[in-house]
């Protein structure tokens, strides 16, 4: 699942991941992501943007852990942040990563966490 308030970014991730054979679902913010999960769409991995309206990345992680503790331990959550915040973000996300590293790094992350 790709959670990002930028429609452009979601579209790009879709093209990128689908061309690698992955199926993706989208959410525009943390709340929508939680709604998706409630509707029984359980992702194998979550790409999460940091800044989003309604419910941002870190807030989603907290809520996700609280509402679905079992799922939280099974589903890797990758929090994507801008260059400056990577070192100061505190979150229980599986990994906190700079979102501008390039698509190869993003694909490697997916491969790594989807064993």
């Amino acid at each position, binding site marked *: 699942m790709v959670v990002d*308030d*930028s*429609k*452009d*970014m979601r*579209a*790009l991730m879709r*093209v*990128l991941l689908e*061309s690698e054979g992955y199926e993706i679902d989208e959410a525009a913010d943390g709340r929508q992501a939680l709604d998706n999960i409630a509707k029984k769409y359980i992702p194998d991995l979550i790409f999460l943007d940091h*800044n989003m*309206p309604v419910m941002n990345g870190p807030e989603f992680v907290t809520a996700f852990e609280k509402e679905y503790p079992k799922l939280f331990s099974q589903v890797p959550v990758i929090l994507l942040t*801008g*260059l400056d915040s990577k070192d100061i973000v505190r979150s229980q996300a599986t990994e906190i990563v700079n*979102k*501008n590293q*390039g*698509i190869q790094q993003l694909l490697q992350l997916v491969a790594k966490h989807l064993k």
Partner: protein
Amino acid sequence: MILWQKRAEKEVFQKNHETSLVLQDSLPEYLHQMAMALSPNLGRSKMRKRNDTLNSHRIGKKHADERSQFTEYSIDQLIFEFHILRQIIFQVLEKETEISQVARDIILNSIENLVNVAATEFSESARNLQEHLSVTITHDLRSPMNTAKMAAEIIVQQKDKPETIKKLAYQIIDNMGRIDHMVQDLLDFSRLRSGKRLDYPLKPFDLNELTAEACNDLNILYENRVRVISKSAVTGHWNKQSLWRVLENLVANAIKYGAQDKEVTIKLEKNKTKAILSVHNFGKIIPQNQKAALFKKYNRKEVNSKVGWGIGLSVVKGIVESHHGKIWIESTKAKGTTFFVELPTNLKKHIIKN
């Protein structure tokens, strides 16, 4: 004492008016303070002294803060204005009466305090503004830049998929356009801040072209939430690129601050001499006392906004005024919020022929 105060207020204010813009608003308050300080009936107790100092601080702070946001006033200008104020106060007082050494000291101390506080506040405000601007610039510019970069990387990776590549290329073009507009906004903001007018080449066209194109583009970004209402051709001489940015800014605000489940409406109307463009949204209203502040050169509230930075509306106002037009807001719970832009249609005479 009251008589003196009233007279001093009037005279000082009048004289001050010609030379200084800084202290105008709180001059009455300040003079009242000073009158109280000089009143022979009140003992200058410690409490009193401290209270007066605090009040001086407050007044000095308020001004410098406002001032630094308007134009690139320098500190020496600010200090110069206080200097003039001091001279005027003494001039006015000396006409009335002999000023005792004690009274003189009180006045001088008071002004000195005011200058110190104002100067400190001024530098700090200016510094804050710089910092906020650079943070929002790097953040807001980075976003479309990285989207475009990522789209380009994916193009490189795509083989034999011309349709996908085309879509990705459009995303790049789109995001570059957004960066271009932000840079242009920033340049305009800079010009406006140094007190200059914006100056754009005017060409004849129908505003309907503008609203239709804008609506198309914006609907891609905002998922079809924007619609246009227009009944007739509205032709005149304007600058399309800058008016595009006006629409872009107003619609972005309407989307961001308006009801998320209702549409945003762009309306185009005209009368004999003017074209009226308006952007409407439902949702949270703008209180009367906040309207003017929105157009100020730097609206702090919008600093962390993801949609553009805090300079948007001040640039919008600058562009509208460079077209010799007017912009205003109507906002009620019943009708929602509408930003109105009125532009003269007959600007042809302003076009300088080379």
